[in-house]
């Protein structure tokens, strides 16, 4: 049986860093879209937010976030940030990870998503975020762009994009 999860593309940041990580011309043959990022920022600070844009759009994003840093738990309303990654002042060699899932990314409905992100660097700048978000746009997702607020992705940051394809039948409804 073919796999439901297919790797579409992996982007690895080279020497000099990159302002964005982009996936374009996303195949519309799947059901769900999964983006996995391992990132580090170049800014001279502990950490930096990663921003998301879809189909070149930076508007229409909202969400609910639950976060913890080992000391306190918090919650916030979000727009298009998808959590923090370690930056240049954090422990060397540490990258922050996140997993972002868009069910039904090619549908004509607004695009809900589920996000888990973590940044652990053995300091007080540890954090993890759980976010339930939405892109209030009925267009199919054809491109994804990741960027860092007021910074760039450092060398060896990497992101992969997968499409997940549903099966058929096998369910009973009543």
């Amino acid at each position, binding site marked *: *049986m*073919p*796999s*439901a*999860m297919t790797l579409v593309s992996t982007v690895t940041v080279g020497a000099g860093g990159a302002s964005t990580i982009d996936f374009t011309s996303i195949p519309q043959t799947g*059901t*769900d879209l999964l983006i996995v990022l391992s990132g580090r920022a170049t800014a001279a600070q502990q950490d930096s937010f990663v921003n998301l844009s879809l189909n070149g759009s930076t508007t229409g994003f*909202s*969400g*609910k*976030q*639950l*976060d913890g840093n080992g000391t306190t*738990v*918090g*919650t*916030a*309303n*979000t727009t298009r940030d998808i959590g923090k990654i370690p930056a240049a002042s954090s422990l060397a060699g540490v990258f922050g990870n996140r997993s972002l*899932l868009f*069910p*039904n990314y090619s549908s004509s*409905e*607004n695009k*809900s*998503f*589920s996000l*888990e992100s973590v940044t652990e660097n053995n300091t007080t700048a540890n954090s993890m975020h*759980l*976010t*339930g*978000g*939405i892109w209030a746009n009925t267009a199919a997702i054809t491109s994804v762009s990741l960027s860092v607020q007021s910074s760039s992705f450092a060398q060896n940051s990497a992101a992969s994009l997968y499409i*997940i*394809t*549903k*099966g*058929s*039948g*096998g*369910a*009973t*409804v*009543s």
Partner: protein
Amino acid sequence: MPTPTYEPLANVTLASETLSVSFSSINQGYRDLVVVCTGKTPFNNTVFATFNGDTAALYSNVSMRGTGSSSATGSNVSQTKLDVTFDTFDANTIGNFIMNIMDYSATDKHKPVLSRSNNAGLVTVASAGRWNSTSAISTITFTFANGSSGFSSGTTFALYGIAS
């Protein structure tokens, strides 16, 4: 070429409001199961799951949630069904949940469930649950609220198997 391990097993897109969605005769040849659902419900309430039609008081969970203005945690023990979404779904904003069931076909352990549930207009939830049974899971049934209202038309459910 690596061996595929994440495989599509079943899927449904609801054509009308539906009270119950079941995946039955689940292939026992995988290690873990993943259910992905996206959609709406007629009003704000929760989605429940039962396994193998079991409605005995054998389901427990712990959860944490954030609404943007408040956070909370809670737990339930010995329930007759498993709360999967903790009042995440409603009629206004399309929501989603992802449910992971590890070792679903094992007969020597209770069944652990990890879930994430999201509604950008209401709340994000993470939960861990357990079905107090050593039976292999062959059927998963999802119902909404008190069972007299259903999932809205257009809601989708997909089941995947992860091979060991």
